[in-house]
């Protein structure tokens, strides 16, 4: 326990120390990114430690880390490392330097509490911390468009935070007691007030993760924001929010009175989210927009698994529940790792037409991009395949129609993934991504491939 706290506080300390070191040395000092790398490494160690000693209770049970959250922490570390690798030393030369290198460890610090929170107020605190960091990160680059995107993100984000506030208040009202541990949903009943509380949570988390119909900001911000920063927001930070979503749904579905209805609501949101994301992505020629809409669709797939979780949670012994959890952990990892590497590609050029020739320009980058896109599509043997397989398979316990819809959506998505793939490997201009981006792509593709090969072990790892 002390070990975990020490690690997390060290990460916080790195975040605080970084600007001081920059003032004492230089904004471009190599020590600064080095410290950020150290923070990422420590976060990964935290994840490993949590996994081997799970479950770990902190702050009298307000934060609990189990094997599932440990996997998410590891996924966040990987995604953060890839995003950091892609950005390289470029953020050191921005006017805002060394904010990026300082905020990234702080964001990691926040995600630790977000995925492990067992109390609404802890959620609110971590949420505010991570959200503010996200807004600031998007506003860091000097490009006007990126800053405009950040402002939009802040505006709508504030509204979402308001809904989170309603949920926090509601959570306490439902429990009718203060100072108890865990969420109050075990005795949730299908009344008007608890409906309002659930809606507030879904609206708030829907904003953060891009669930339709709370996704409106996402295509604009993701397509206009700086690729490095979007990589962080959509990679490590989103994984943490997906962890929070899963934990709250598990807590809410514990009551047999509402689990079926929650599953129905999640299934409806899943269908909406998958279909919206996939259809909207179909004809766009902008690679960054394509990734933005595909992000929506990927969260839709995760909602399919969450539907199964909501439905199966009252019967805890069901092996499909474990499968669904493994599916979410895998899908979040596959998604976060791939997107952290792919969004920075748009730093060079975001039009698919102008990305033609990547194969002749940089074969390794093109092959890695291809692997990441195929993983997002769900092609074996890459990691994304196992994620979709487990998510969809577990959902067969709830509704075959839902699974069929998910499969059809997956088929639809092949149209834009394969088209993007074709464009990337077609002959054309000699596009040469920056070395840092190439390295990030290669690392991400390697991770996706290796984890894909051991994908079936995930289920056992969670039990």
């Amino acid at each position, binding site marked *: 326990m002390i070990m975990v706290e020490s690690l997390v506080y060290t990460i916080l300390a790195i975040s605080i120390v970084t600007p001081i070191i920059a003032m004492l040395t230089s904004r471009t000092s190599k020590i600064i990114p080095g410290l950020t790398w150290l923070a990422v490494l420590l976060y990964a160690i935290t994840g490993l430690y949590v996994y081997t000693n799970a479950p770990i209770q902190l702050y009298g049970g307000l934060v609990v880390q189990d094997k599932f959250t440990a996997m998410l922490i590891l996924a966040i570390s990987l995604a953060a490392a890839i995003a950091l690798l892609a950005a390289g030393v470029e953020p050191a030369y921005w006017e805002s330097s060394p904010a990026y290198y300082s905020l990234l460890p702080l964001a990691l610090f926040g995600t630790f509490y977000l995925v492990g929170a067992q109390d609404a107020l802890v959620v609110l605190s971590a949420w505010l911390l991570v959200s503010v960091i996200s807004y600031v990160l998007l506003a860091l680059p000097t490009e006007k468009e990126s800053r405009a995107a950040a402002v939009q993100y802040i505006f709508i984000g504030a509204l979402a935070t308001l809904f989170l506030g309603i949920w926090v208040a509601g959570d306490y009202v439902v429990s009718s007691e203060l100072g108890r541990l865990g969420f109050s949903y075990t005795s949730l009943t299908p009344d008007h007030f608890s409906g309002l509380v659930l809606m507030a949570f879904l609206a708030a988390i829907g904003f953060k993760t891009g669930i339709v119909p709370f996704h*409106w900001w996402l295509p604009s911000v993701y397509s206009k924001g700086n690729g490095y920063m979007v990589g962080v927001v959509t990679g490590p930070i989103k994984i943490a929010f997906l962890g929070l979503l899963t934990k709250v749904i598990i807590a809410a579905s514990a009551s047999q009175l509402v689990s079926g209805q929650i599953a129905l*609501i999640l299934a409806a949101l899943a269908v909406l989210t998958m279909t919206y994301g996939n259809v*909207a992505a179909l*004809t766009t020629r902008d690679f960054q927009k394509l990734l933005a809409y595909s992000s929506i669709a990927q969260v839709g797939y995760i909602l399919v698994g969450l539907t199964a979780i909501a439905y199966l949670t009252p019967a805890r012994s069901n092996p499909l529940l474990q499968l669904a959890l493994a599916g979410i952990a895998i899908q979040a990892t596959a998604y976060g790792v791939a997107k952290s590497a792919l969004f920075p590609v748009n730093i060079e050029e975001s039009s698919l037409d102008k990305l033609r020739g990547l194969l002749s320009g940089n074969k390794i980058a093109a092959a890695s991009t291809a692997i990441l896109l195929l993983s997002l599509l769900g092609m074996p043997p890459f990691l994304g395949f196992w994620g979709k397989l487990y998510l969809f398979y577990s959902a067969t316990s709830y509704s075959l129609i839902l699974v069929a819809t998910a499969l059809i959506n997956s088929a639809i998505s092949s149209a834009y993934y394969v088209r993007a793939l074709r464009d990337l490997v077609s002959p054309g201009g000699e596009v040469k991504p920056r070395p840092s981006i190439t390295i990030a792509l290669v690392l991400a593709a390697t991770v996706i491939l290796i984890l894909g090969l051991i994908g079936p072990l995930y289920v056992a790892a969670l039990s």
Partner: protein
Amino acid sequence: MTPEVTVTGFLPWSLIWFISYLGAFILALLYLAGVKNEKVYGWGSVTTIALSALLATAAAKEVFSKGPIYSLYAKNWVPWLNVTLGTYLDGLGVVMALIVSWLSLLIAIYSVKYMEGDWGVQRYFFFFTFFVASMLLLVTADNLILMFIGWEGTGLASYALIGHWYTDEEEYWVGVPGRKALGQPMYFEPSHSGVRALMFTRIGDIGLLIGMAVIFLITGTFNIPALASSASTWMGYLATKGILLPLLLIFSLGALAKSAQFPFHEWLVTAMTGPTPVSALIHAATMVKAGVYFMLRFVPIFFAGAYALMHTNPAAVEAARQYFTIMAGLGAVTAFMMGTMALVSNELKLILAFSTASQLGYMFLGTAAAGLLLEEGYEGLATGVAAGLSHLMSHAVFKAALFLIAGWLIHVAHSRFIDPMGKYAKYMKITAVSIWLAGLSLMGIPPLSGFFSKESVLHAAEEAHLSMGYSLGVITAALTAAYTFRMILRVFHLEPYDKEKWHEPHEAPGLMLWPYTILALVSLILGLYWTGTGKAIGEAIGETLSVGTPAHLVVRLTTGVAVVLTLALASIGIVWALYVPMKVDFPRLIREKTWARVLHDFLYDRWYINSIYYWIFVSGFAGVAYLLSIVDFGIDAFYHYAIPVLFALGAAGLRALHRGRSNYYMMLYIYFAATLLLFIYLAWG
């Protein structure tokens, strides 16, 4: 009633078929190595087949003296299917091996000369040898799987050799170019005929496979002797389930198709596009006999099953009786139908092809009739089966001779039609004697072998009280005499119809002349010494699986025999009268008299069965394909136009919702939060 069996290893008896496969394999290797010399292939094929023939002869000697041989060399060839690997040489198997190997040898020798200079001679001899090996495997296999491998091997070789001249020059066609019946073409190219043969026989083979599978599921074995010894058990079981008759019929579909029995007879007619030695060997003497062999092999087994159940399971006995009656009926109908077609044909090989299918019908009639002689016990069975086998043997000999002669006649006439042929007896004395010997045997005139074997078949049908089958058999005997006599008369003795295209013929070279002369003489000798021939066949049947009782093939001069012989002679007399003293101008008659034309066209166009098949299956399926193509067009349009347009509009529409303004997004956010709340309340119920 299974005779005692001597069990041996692989050597030497399995070499009967193995050596020919080895020969085919070596020929293929030589071809791949670039050896082009056709003599290597011709004589290589002859040598390997000669070795097979000598081994078969030695095996026959062994079987006749010591009883059946079971050369079992792998008890567990395919363990999970319980498949053995062995050669089973009983009386039937060894007689079949003798017929196949020796006829193949003579025809291979003939082929060396006939195929001289042909552009595909290497391929020809490879498939020829491969065919002989497969045929020998088929008749000596100890289990259904091995038999099926041989069965399919012969089918493959048949397909390849029918389409040997796959470049489809008109001289190799069958039928009159341009002729149509009921709007369907009645002329066939080699490549088309090859595919037809394959398609027709595959339909039957599917039945055979299904039958094999069902029998295996019940008995757990493919081993033929094991199936024979357990026949009463599995037949009884199937009868209690009410599926014995359908199963036996489905199991026999392969035999019906392979032996070109109605309704599968059409493929054999057009198979005549292959080189004539192929027609002689595969489509007259051997492969088409595979179906008859199947009957000869399994009728005793089914008989034994039914015989054992006679007092305990009347349903099984009744189903077996119905099966034998149906098979005999199909044989009789085929014999009659094809006989009528042969009456009017003017293509030499087609006349012989119709005749082949017709005579195969006799064999089915006789063999199936044997199964009906339950009350007479195994002696009745043995006599009937021996009748079928004797006709198989005598037909193989005289029909091979006739085909080989036809090959030479077509060569000298430069035509496959008999119209430019005539007066050949004057120029080809030996050939004329040969065709008369073989022809009289086909006509069923004593003392040729065909007389005795045909009478034996008719006797079996009579004994089995198959009045309809017997009557059709008798009528067919008259038809056979008529068309055979007409063919020989027109080609060898009368003036040709088409004098302008007549070419002066000459005797065939020795390598071609002697094989068919020997065969014609054999036909005579077998008949002259029928007492010995019949006894040998009877003894062979006595050493056959599920029979075990020697047959007595003696033809006595009864009223029935006298009637059949009189009818045959009378029909010969009528044909002679029509062509010689009356000099009836048949082409003119057909042109001028409607009744004559209608009758001629009905028979010439094969009872319109081919056209009906083409309308139902080819045009019918083409119609279905057209309808499906319309559906396909709709599906294509849906997938390639409607869906892309729909999705493009959908995608653009959804993206258009994102206007980029924050206040608009916030409005949407709140609006949908309220909608979600409503939805949750609805879900809450």
